[in-house]
């Protein structure tokens, strides 16, 4: 018997219309756990780097996390992996909700989709019975509407449905896969689903998910619940309210948006409005939110209530979570009511709530700069909010200028030309980033923005406070119950952190260690399917490196300790990097947007990458060395890379080492702050006027 996982994957070939059930190799669970880890293994083995994302040979994999469907609180993630039409690299997006546990109860760990259906279809997984069904009547239907219609026609109100909207059907490069409560929206995976002619996957299951050591496992689960209750009553002191609790940022219940509105940039990731938030706006937005949020809702087996049911007089009910509440609002320099209004529509069309508002704000900037004209935008409204609705309609239909914008900022800028490239100032590896523009470089964040394989900062950051505590007492108080640190020495990072010590704090060496800790926790979650909101994302989470090995061991029957778990995360992380290396990603691509920080330190930045690559066992071009891969049991990966000649490539040009040597410290944190780095000239992009 297999524990925690089912041991069965569904293999669907939409070109041939075939459905097969394949037993999975339990040895792969030991090596990669599941979820993202085993998805990466399948993509490495079966999708050669020449395969275009919109080729029938590209795979689209829906995977339940290893622990999804067990009683582990918050273990409910679906990990969707494929190749991105936008970045041309591996795309993985992760959604909560109810789909992954239902897939497990239906008896499967993964649904692996290849080929392309000649007509629009949907997949109906009803336990042992699996069917490819006609979906031509669902063409053009919204993502949520599709789910409702499918549940009605199947007479299965308990089926869980993941669907694309019009944007996915039209292969918009930032189309999402929506699941009502949650969405997998990064990297354009909805476009790949659309390309495959797959409108939705509905799933219903009535089987058991087994636990190897039930009593021990339950004790751990109860511990997590107790800790969640404890943290509810004891929020972390000295940090903004949005960072004080657990879960995804509690955007549906928190009214105080001082932190987002002041720290994040408005428009096309352009303007900081540090004084925007005031009593009057707080009052107005609170009223809007109280009216809109009808109920707080959770994902499967989780009490965090990160989502909300939204009602708006102009819309059908829909479900929202986290920061999508503000992305449209801030891109349009508008207010919260507009945000609720347009987000509901965008969700029906199935587009990413991060990228879409930025693409639209980018188009508006081009229009104001005269690069796009009335000829390009026939019928463009004069009202600001109406313009965003207009652009959304054009993009999801790929009509006129929408066809260009639907490829995202990077590709659109190059297609439009006439200097539009200068307005593409917030992408990394062709992918739109969170609109955040700051003053002084932060070495930890420099490494994470540059090297994160998901190309999305929230999927790699976590664990550590984002600003220093002002007093020694506060710092000591903070570290007292900081049991989540992998080593005691990590506490020094907080204990020694004085205000205004960036960019020289912490040391490069400590930065490498802190980055590795943060990303390791994410790689574990992405394999187990535990929500990052209870694990890798918040400060002091209930799941951490000291209890996760037991969770996994008791659930699966495998014998996994901290060192082994760390190694598995490293194996998955290196495998995904190798996949991207094989598709051409190199050091030259690993950089945050030029204007991400006002002050830049080119020499120090080069050194940060040098050292981080070394620390990870990668060569100076960011490629995992053969030795590193061998040690992780990925020798076949190293051999492949060698055969492709990637190790013989000329070394990347690196800036000369910093004039002042960093003093290396044995543990994270240092008070020394050498001065005198030159700041980089300001980015060339034109600063546009506020509306």
């Amino acid at each position: 018997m297999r524990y925690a996982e089912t041991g069965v994957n569904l293999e669907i070939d939409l070109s041939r219309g075939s459905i097969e059930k394949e037993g999975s190799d339990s040895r792969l669970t030991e090596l990669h756990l599941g979820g993202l880890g085993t998805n990466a293994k399948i993509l490495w083995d079966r999708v050669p780097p020449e395969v275009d994302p919109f080729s029938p040979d590209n795979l689209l994999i829906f995977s339940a996390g290893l622990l999804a469907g067990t009683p582990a609180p918050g273990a409910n993630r679906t990990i969707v992996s494929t190749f991105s039409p936008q970045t041309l690299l591996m795309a993985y997006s992760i959604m909560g909700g109810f789909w992954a546990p239902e897939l497990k109860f239906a008896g499967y760990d993964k649904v692996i989709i290849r080929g392309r259906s000649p007509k629009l279809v949907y997949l109906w997984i009803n336990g042992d019975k699996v069917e490819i069904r006609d979906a031509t009547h669902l063409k053009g239907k919204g993502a949520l509407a599709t789910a409702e219609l499918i549940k009605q026609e199947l007479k299965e109100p308990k089926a869980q449905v993941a669907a694309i909207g019009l944007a996915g059907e039209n292969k918009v490069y930032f189309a999402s896969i929506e699941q009502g409560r949650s969405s997998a929206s990064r990297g354009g995976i909805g476009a790949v689903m659309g390309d495959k002619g797959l409108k939705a996957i509905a799933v219903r299951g009535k089987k058991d998910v087994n636990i190897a050591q039930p009593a021990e496992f339950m004790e751990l689960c109860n511990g997590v619940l107790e800790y969640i209750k404890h943290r509810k009553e004891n929020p972390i002191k000295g940090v903004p309210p949005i960072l004080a609790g657990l879960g995804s940022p509690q955007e549906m219940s928190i009214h105080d948006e001082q932190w987002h509105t002041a720290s994040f940039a408005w428009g096309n990731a352009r303007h900081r409005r540090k004084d925007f938030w005031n009593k009057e706006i707080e009052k107005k937005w609170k009223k809007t939110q109280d009216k809109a949020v009808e109920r707080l809702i959770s994902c499967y087996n989780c009490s965090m209530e990160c989502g909300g049911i939204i009602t708006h007089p102009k819309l059908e009910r829909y479900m929202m979570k986290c920061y999508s509440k503000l992305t449209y609002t801030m891109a349009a320099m508008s207010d919260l009511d507009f945000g609720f209004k347009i987000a509901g529509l965008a969700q029906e069309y199935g587009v990413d709530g991060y990228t879409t508002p930025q693409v639209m704000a980018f188009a508006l900037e081009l229009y104001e700069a005269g690069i796009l004209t009335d000829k390009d935008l026939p019928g463009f409204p004069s009202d600001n909010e109406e313009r965003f609705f207009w652009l959304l309609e054009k993009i999801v239909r790929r009509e006129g200028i929408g066809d260009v914008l639907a490829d995202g900022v990077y590709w659109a800028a190059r297609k439009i030309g006439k200097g539009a490239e200068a307005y593409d100032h917030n992408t990394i590896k062709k992918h739109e980033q969170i609109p955040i523009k700051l003053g002084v470089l932060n070495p930890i964040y420099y490494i994470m923005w540059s090297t994160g394989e998901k190309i999305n900062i929230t999927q790699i950051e976590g664990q550590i406070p984002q600003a220093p505590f002002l007093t020694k007492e506060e710092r000591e108080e903070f570290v007292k119950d900081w049991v989540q640190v992998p080593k005691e020495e990590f506490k020094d990072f907080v204990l020694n952190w004085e205000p205004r010590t960036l960019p020289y704090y912490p040391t490069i060496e400590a930065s490498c260690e802190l980055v590795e800790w943060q990303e390791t926790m994410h790689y574990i979650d992405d394999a187990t399917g535990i929500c990052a909101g209870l694990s890798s994302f918040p400060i002091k989470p209930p799941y951490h490196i000291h209890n996760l090995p037991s969770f996994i061991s008791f659930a699966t029957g495998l014998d996994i300790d901290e060192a082994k778990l760390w190694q598995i995360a490293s194996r998955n992380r290196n495998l995904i990097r190798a996949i991207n290396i094989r598709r051409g990603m190199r050091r030259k691509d690993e950089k945050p947007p030029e204007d991400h920080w006002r002050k830049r330190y080119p020499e120090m930045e080069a050194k940060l990458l040098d050292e981080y690559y070394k620390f990870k066992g990668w060569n100076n071009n960011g490629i995992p060395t053969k030795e590193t891969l061998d040690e992780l049991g990925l020798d076949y990966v190293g051999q492949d890379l060698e055969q492709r000649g990637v190790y013989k490539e000329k070394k990347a040009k690196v800036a000369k080492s910093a004039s002042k040597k960093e003093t290396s410290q044995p543990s994270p944190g240092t008070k020394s702050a050498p001065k005198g780095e030159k700041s980089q000239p300001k980015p060339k992009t034109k600063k546009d006027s506020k509306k």
Partner: protein
Amino acid sequence: MKKVKVIKIDVDKCNGCRACEAICSAFHAEPKYSSTNPERSRIRVLFDPLKDIYVPVLAGEYTEAECNGRDTYTINGKEYDECSFCRASCPSRDLFKDPDSDLPLKCDMCEEEPPLPEPLCVQWCLSDALTYEEREEEEEEEENPREMEIGLESLIKKHGAKTVMDTVARLAKG
């Protein structure tokens, strides 16, 4: 006095997470906690997010036949499905039946020795949509003998003493 166990359900507080289903099915697995399967749970959350309807329902008695005629409830403008509040394991719906044997499932308030402080669905409901209460109730009193006399008197008046006695004798024989 007898002890009455009550699970109070506040539908406004339910966030639809179904932790109650997960833990109920795990507790009732054999061996205990060895598997999870909401389909075996004796509590289900009937929900329809797009109508903002969330109703946790505990499995009650098995019934052989479905209702003759149905009701619907509209509460605060939301129309609830006609079986929303019904606890029965009933032929009309796919609820509270063991997925393998099809045998009816019924909530037992997580009875075990030593007793749990609260049923597990309540313990795992951190949003307090489910809360637990025990209260003492007067035992139902023995039937008042005078009541039977009144009944018999009226029967004798109507049918005559002999007919009543013959009938009682015949029934007593079984």
